[in-house]
């Protein structure tokens, strides 16, 4: 493939065109709906960052109660406990299960908080011209979009445990309030990351990069 615009800046927008983000077909910039796939076309959504922040705020808002309420309510013959995310991890660590405690802390605390920070940094980076390179910010966005879905694993584990451990008086696990807030937080964070238009990262890119995309053989 070769760059369409030769030496002039090689983006669709600079060429008076708009690319479909769903099927990559190119149309004149004033086109509103993609004629190939029917997706709504917009060269840049002026409200993209507002949408990102709106979803981001709800996501962070749900993450707070997700940590305050218990995630699981466990009843066994000997005791009953309502564990929050962090509380449960601390409990495991005290019992010597350091490995699982660290996995839980990484999956349920480090990754969600990291996602919030990265999305905020990306949105601010567009607004205030980030010092980080475009390539790096683009990779951060891809990582957040990829990892975002995996946070649902906590909710699924709660669902599996509560349906499985129903052994009458011997042992029973019920989902706690936090599972609901945690699920909502994950979903809203995913929506926030999806609302972020990665093309905005590259719009500040001053010089056109190499004209032809690399051709790669499969690894």
């Amino acid at each position, binding site marked *: 493939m070769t760059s369409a615009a030769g030496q002039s800046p090689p983006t669709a927008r600079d060429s008076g*065109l708009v690319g479909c983000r769903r*099927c990559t077909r190119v149309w004149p910039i004033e086109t509103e709906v993609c004629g190939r796939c029917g997706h709504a076309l917009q*060269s840049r959504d002026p409200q993209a960052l507002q949408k990102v922040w709106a979803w981001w705020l709800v996501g962070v808002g749900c993450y707070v109660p997700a940590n305050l309420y218990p995630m699981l309510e466990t009843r066994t013959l000997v005791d009953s406990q309502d564990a929050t995310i962090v509380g449960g991890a601390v409990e495991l660590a005290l019992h010597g299960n350091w490995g699982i405690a660290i996995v839980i802390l990484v999956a349920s605390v480090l990754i969600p908080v990291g996602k919030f920070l990265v999305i905020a940094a990306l949105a601010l980076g567009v607004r205030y011209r980030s010092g980080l390179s475009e390539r790096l910010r683009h990779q951060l966005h891809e990582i957040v979009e990829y990892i975002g879905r995996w946070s649902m*694993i906590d909710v699924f584990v709660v669902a*599996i445990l509560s349906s499985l451990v129903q*052994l009458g008086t011997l042992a029973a696990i*019920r989902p706690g309030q936090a599972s609901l807030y945690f699920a909502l937080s994950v979903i809203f964070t995913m929506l926030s990351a999806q609302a972020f238009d990665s093309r905005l990262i*590259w719009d500040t890119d001053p010089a056109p990069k190499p004209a032809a995309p690399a051709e790669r053989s*499969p690894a």
Partner: protein
Amino acid sequence: MTHPADRTDLDALIACPRCDALYKVREPAHRERAVCARCHHVLIAPRRGAGAQIVAVALTVVVLVVAATIFPFLEVSVGGATNASSILDAALAFSGSGLFLLLALAVAALIVVIPVTRALLVIYVIAPLVFDRRPLPHASSAFRLSEALRPWSMAEIFAIGCAVALVKVADLATVSLGPAFWMFSVLVVLVVAQDSFLCRYSVWKALEREARPT
């Protein structure tokens, strides 16, 4: 400002959906990939004969998800008491009250409804192309919906969740794996494989070409 393309040859251009870089299409050879020079997004990755494989995998996914939903996937026992749980049981674990019911529906959608819907949409869109037929009505909308649902199809995440749950219950009770657990494991591999076979550009191109009145 130059307009490099007039309306007639827009067909031959491709805009990177992630960074807006514009390229003139030169289709890579079988098993090669065209990658955006700026952001490294894979633009085109054609594979000959992928269509039939994708349809076969999608059919298997439908059968597996339906079967895995009915059969138990994990069974615990403590003392004399045992309990087996199917995937529907897991989703419905939340169905206590009000908002939890909503969560139950969401979980059922993420692990059963959306993966099956995606597989059915893919069959609907790609099967006619494999057999050199005209696309079925609304094939473009169907494929667009399937692509939009992609991040929300979480069967593979649920399968890994089973493994985590196993570890957590291990010291509380004896756990045994039901048939559905193995079906779900196969499913995970298939779902991942399907996404890597699918060259979106080739599908859109084929839909566009075949839909044109002759």
